[in-house]
């Protein structure tokens, strides 16, 4: 327990976090690329077509759509957790984490919406359907963009961090409320959904889970890269950043 706490505190040090993530990053990228390569091969070529609902090739969109949609939710929840850590334990690095998740999360939400729309055209015959999930995703995208807009509206970073952290927490309390409201509203008006009942057949499971793992790691890699940039940005004046920057340019001029 004490060890876990110490590690937690070390993570709060920008320098330690920057060095550690620098060591992890190549590995994460390596595994990400392998998983995505295998996953995409399976999902785009080697998996069977969907016959039961007559979706044919369009089912392949699912392998991108489902991980993106899952990550859009997970990303927002992770933001809120980091925001709570930042506000309660006054850990500044947590705010950098919140800020780093936001663009990746927004991108995943957009990807989920985009693939959902492309999927919707052959399935529903329209690019946009006010389906419960799609509508919730749209509102989630607004929440992400609201966070980013709020964070970039302050001249002082510490205020931006704290105010938008509160917004992230308020947002996460609202996500289930929004989701159930929209679902209730949707059943009232349409009673029409793509939700598939029953378990997924095993031949779909392998590519889906590979893609899920790959996309999660991709998300982590993107967040970490943004986080490293945030760390440098926020600690411009500290010595180790100066040393790191000058050491880097020396190496470049040497080559």
């Amino acid at each position, binding site marked *: 327990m004490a060890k876990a706490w110490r590690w937690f505190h070390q993570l709060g040090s920008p320098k330690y976090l920057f060095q550690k993530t620098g060591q992890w990053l190549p590995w994460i990228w390596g595994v990400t690329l392998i998983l995505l390569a295998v996953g995409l091969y399976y999902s785009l070529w080697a998996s069977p077509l969907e016959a039961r609902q007559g979706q044919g090739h369009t089912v392949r969109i699912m392998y991108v759509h489902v991980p993106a949609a899952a990550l859009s939710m997970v990303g927002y929840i992770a933001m809120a957790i980091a925001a709570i850590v930042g506000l309660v334990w006054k850990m500044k690095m947590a705010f950098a984490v919140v800020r780093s998740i936001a663009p990746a999360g927004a991108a995943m939400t957009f990807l989920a919406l985009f693939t959902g729309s492309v999927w919707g055209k052959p399935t529903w015959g329209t690019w946009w359907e006010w389906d419960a999930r799609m509508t919730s995703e749209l509102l989630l995208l607004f929440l992400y963009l609201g966070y980013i807009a709020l964070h970039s509206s302050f001249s*002082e*970073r510490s205020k931006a961090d704290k105010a938008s952290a509160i917004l992230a927490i308020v947002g996460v309390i609202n996500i289930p409320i929004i989701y159930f409201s929209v679902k209730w509203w949707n059943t009232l008006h349409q009673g029409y959904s793509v939700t598939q009942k029953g378990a997924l057949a095993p031949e779909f499971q392998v590519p889906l889970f590979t893609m899920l793992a790959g996309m999660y790691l991709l998300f982590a890699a993107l967040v970490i890269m943004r986080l490293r940039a945030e760390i440098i940005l926020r600690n*411009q004046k500290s010595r180790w950043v100066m040393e790191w920057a000058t050491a880097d340019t020396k190496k470049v001029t040497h080559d």
Partner: protein
Amino acid sequence: MPSLSSMSQSQDIHFDGLYAHELTVSRSEHVLLEDAELHLAPATITYLYGDNGTGKTSLMRCLTGLLQPDHGTVYWNEKPINHPESGYFQDLIFLAHSLSMKNELTIAENLTFYAQLRCGGSYNNKELQADISQVLTDLGIDGLEGRMFAELSAGQQHKVALARLMLEPAKIWLLDEPFVNLDQKTRRWLAAKTLEFKAQGGVVLFTSHHHIDELPVDQKVGVEHE
């Protein structure tokens, strides 16, 4: 020249009055103060000086608790100011640059509001109105109680803000640039009232760009940058 970090380094806080311990304050990633110690004892007047942008106002706002320091604690009578038992916010009057008065309210309504907010219902309204008239007379703006705050001149508005010091019981005054834009007569009035407050055991900290001849100070504190 006394600087902020020249005080005692002891860990235990045995100081009456206001004590800021290991205070680190920054604005926009710019460190204004680092590990500063500051003691404002009862019955003393402290003059806080420094050039523009050195962080006088930030330091003062830190002492009010409005601005969270990056590090360090402010104690009032040996208790952290946020501690419920410190009673700090009951004892404190902070007059900022902004006058904190509503344009839509009359002078009397503005002053009554703050007095009631501080004292609850314990203030007898008739007495309070009499006190307000008295202070306004002392300040040379008598008869303006019923005028809207917005209708007053800048100098008169400033005087109204100062009137709060006479109407609300307190043990510590933090005054940000109280002497700026004041005429000779009001400066003398404020200096005299500050000395009176000190004589009753009050703690005073004020900022100013230049020395105030009318007001002898017990402690001078400078904020400066290397």
